[in-house]
């Protein structure tokens, strides 16, 4: 019987803290690392901005870089890091047989064109004609492609030659959960041998903030860490730009090519709770019960957004198990939407591989002093959809 355990063999990470697994490990295990916050550009909202990135390191052709806006560039860059890390980048055969599941939202609209349309609308009543007038003359033709959800995957195919298959899932944090869950299920069933999976989020664009703020989800006022935002002005979410990609492989496939294994990906669980009826805390508890959590102290990387209701429910569910020491990654990176779950899984994998936990990301998080063999990763959506996974040290 083929060994189709799912293992993690490549990690690509970018956030306001920097880029790469090693850099994130360094920052996140140094107690008191301060988050990188820009509270000026999008007042009254704080965001965690991208670090300076030399795009050419992963996207060699400037022509390719020009075809993308920042979101696609960020995802393509981060995917390249994961492929590099797994020893797949530049290997034509492995790339051509590699499957891909990308969790994506949409790309950046042209803010100046939109602002022009809105400004002109003040003196017009024929708004539909105004749209035709402005968009036919001012939109850059290729911008459409930089906005299309599936063109992040498309660019990864073009730049990194990953062409086994290409699927894009949409739907905020849930897309990231489904992407990893589906990739793992395909490997376990023998439908795939190695899969590139992940996502990216570029928050430094007013439309990306608007996507939260239409329902009042963004935190306002002085920045606070995730668990301390209840009762603060606004909705509790502070966003960050970032990306996370993983290379998942069957154990056999990874071992046959002698590739280093970070961690084993255990159960991946997902759910859709009808939250307006309440019961999110119980639903998270039910997912925890199915996660095959071992006895003893357990480190958890929580993807909680800070959104008041969802975060309170997750905190209550995690706190009800005194063995769980949770770390809210958004306190240091901000909320990265589609990339949130892949990011949490990546940090969990780093911890089991390094054999050490993370210190508290904020005051009040339980101590974790042991050597983690298993780490839980969660993503409870700010508005809908839930997921978690157990990541374990490689056997």
């Amino acid at each position: 019987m083929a060994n189709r355990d799912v293992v993690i063999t490549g990690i690509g990470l970018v956030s306001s803290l920097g880029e790469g697994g090693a850099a994130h490990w360094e920052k996140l295990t140094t107690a008191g690392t301060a988050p990188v916050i820009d509270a000026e550009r999008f007042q009254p909202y704080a965001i965690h901005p991208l670090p300076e990135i030399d795009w050419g390191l992963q996207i060699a052709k400037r022509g390719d870089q020009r075809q993308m806006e920042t979101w696609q560039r960020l995802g393509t860059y981060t995917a390249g890091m994961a492929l590099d890390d797994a020893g797949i980048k530049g290997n034509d055969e492995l790339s051509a047989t590699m499957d891909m599941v990308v969790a994506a939202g949409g790309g950046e609209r042209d803010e100046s064109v939109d602002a022009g349309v809105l400004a002109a609308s003040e003196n017009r009543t024929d708004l539909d004609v105004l749209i035709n007038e402005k968009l036919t003359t001012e939109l850059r033709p290729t911008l459409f492609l930089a906005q299309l959800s599936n063109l992040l995957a498309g660019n990864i195919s073009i730049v990194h030659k990953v062409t086994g298959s290409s699927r894009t899932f949409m739907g905020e944090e849930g897309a990231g959960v489904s992407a990893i869950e589906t990739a793992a299920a395909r490997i376990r069933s023998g439908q795939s041998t190695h899969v590139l999976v992940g996502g990216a989020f570029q928050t430094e664009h007013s439309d990306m903030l608007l996507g939260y703020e239409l329902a009042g989800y963004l935190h306002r006022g002085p920045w606070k860490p995730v668990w301390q935002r209840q009762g603060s002005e606004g909705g509790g979410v502070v966003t960050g730009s970032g990306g996370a990609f993983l290379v998942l492989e069957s154990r056999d496939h990874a071992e046959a090519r002698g590739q280093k294994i970070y961690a084993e990906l255990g159960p991946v669980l997902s759910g859709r709770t009808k939250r307006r009826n309440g019961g999110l805390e119980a639903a998270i508890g039910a997912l925890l019960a199915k996660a095959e959590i071992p006895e003893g102290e357990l480190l958890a990387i929580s993807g909680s957004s800070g959104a008041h209701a969802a975060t309170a429910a997750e905190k209550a569910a995690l706190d009800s198990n005194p063995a769980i020491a949770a770390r809210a990654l958004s306190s240091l990176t901000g909320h990265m939407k589609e990339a949130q779950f892949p990011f949490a899984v990546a940090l969990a994998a780093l911890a089991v591989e390094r054999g050490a936990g993370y210190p508290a990301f904020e005051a009040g998080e339980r101590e974790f002093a042991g050597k983690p063999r298993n780490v839980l990763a969660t993503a409870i959506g700010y508005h809908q959809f839930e997921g978690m996974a157990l990541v374990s040290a490689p056997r």
Partner: protein
Amino acid sequence: MANLKDHLGRPVVAVTGIGVVTSLGVGKADNWAALTSGKSGIHPITRFPTDLLNTRISGMVDFLPSSAKGASALTYELAETAALEAVEEAGFASDDFDGPLFLASPPVELDWRDRFTLYAGDDEGSASERLLKVARSQNSLDMFDTSQFGSIADRLADRFGTRGLPITTSTACASGATAIQLGVEAIRRGECDRALSVGADGSATAEALIRFSLLSALSTNNDVPEKASKPFSKDRDGFVLAEGSAALVLESLESALARGAEVLGILRGCGEKADDFHRTRSKPDGSPAIAAVKAALADAGLAEDEIDYVNAHGTSTPENDKMEHLSLSTVFGERIRKIPVSSNKSMIGHTLSAAGAIEAAFSLMTMREGVIPPTINYDNPDPSIELDVVPNVKRKAEVRTVLSNSFGFGGQNTCLVMAREPV
């Protein structure tokens, strides 16, 4: 007794429910009648003014209550309408389907009318500041939902009582086929006995039209709309933007037989291959599309000479039809001249995210009815594309197997192989 496992030992996947909406009408009966009589659903755009637009025709669905309520509302209603037809035909409770949902739908963006409303709600600061400020003060869940990529699937999951976290997929013009493939794979993995796969697209807004137009992808044959979509013709000049939806209830053959459900067809195989050549153009040698067709045949356990009919992607763009011919003739060799290959898009236009699902639905009906819908507007054949396109008039034929192609921007190539009967 039919085999319950396929050639690779996986559960055979049957179709037990089909629903469809296009510009030709609501439901299988109306659509099939129109499709087999060679009727076009392409018409002048009335939803918004077409001043200054190069393309003023489309295959929009203008007859639903949500047709004028924005892309999100219409996409939901299209999906719900098709899914209801499929679930009822399959004989499941329409509020307790209890299998996973896979939805192909277009990426969403806040509608312009909402942007105008937000902008008008304040008069200070930059446009983006005004939108954000008014957004947080209005706190409108209705508007918020139209900006969330998971909302339509979430509503459908509520409506039909599907199980678990619904997956919304976008693989551009292959999305509908991908949604079906995801359902097939879930059943084959033994995760479920049944799945609901839906493709829906109600996103033919002015901005969408303009974006495709700026890429020179659309036909500008405005004068005679019903003649604009002419796949495989020498004078084809682009696709016609359209809307629609289709839903399939996929079910393990074992489950379908056990409950005595009528088997409408078999989803035998799926194949895909990504193209790394260009964001909108295919690799000149057609190798990714060729690989996708071959992968679908291999997955189905069928040889090239066992395909009776090809339901083409056939968009009516100069590039697609040429590339599709190249890939089909490479895979099928000389025999391709004898295989009927027709394009539903000649009548319904290109329904984008829904196309793969709609064309799978029509493929299944083609086999059941023994009638191949024609490629209409085939008055001026492209001499470099030697295909039997079932020109202009439907054809009676025994069709046991169909290959349905879906190709999309971003290097997406997905092919489905369907069969009339289980083996």
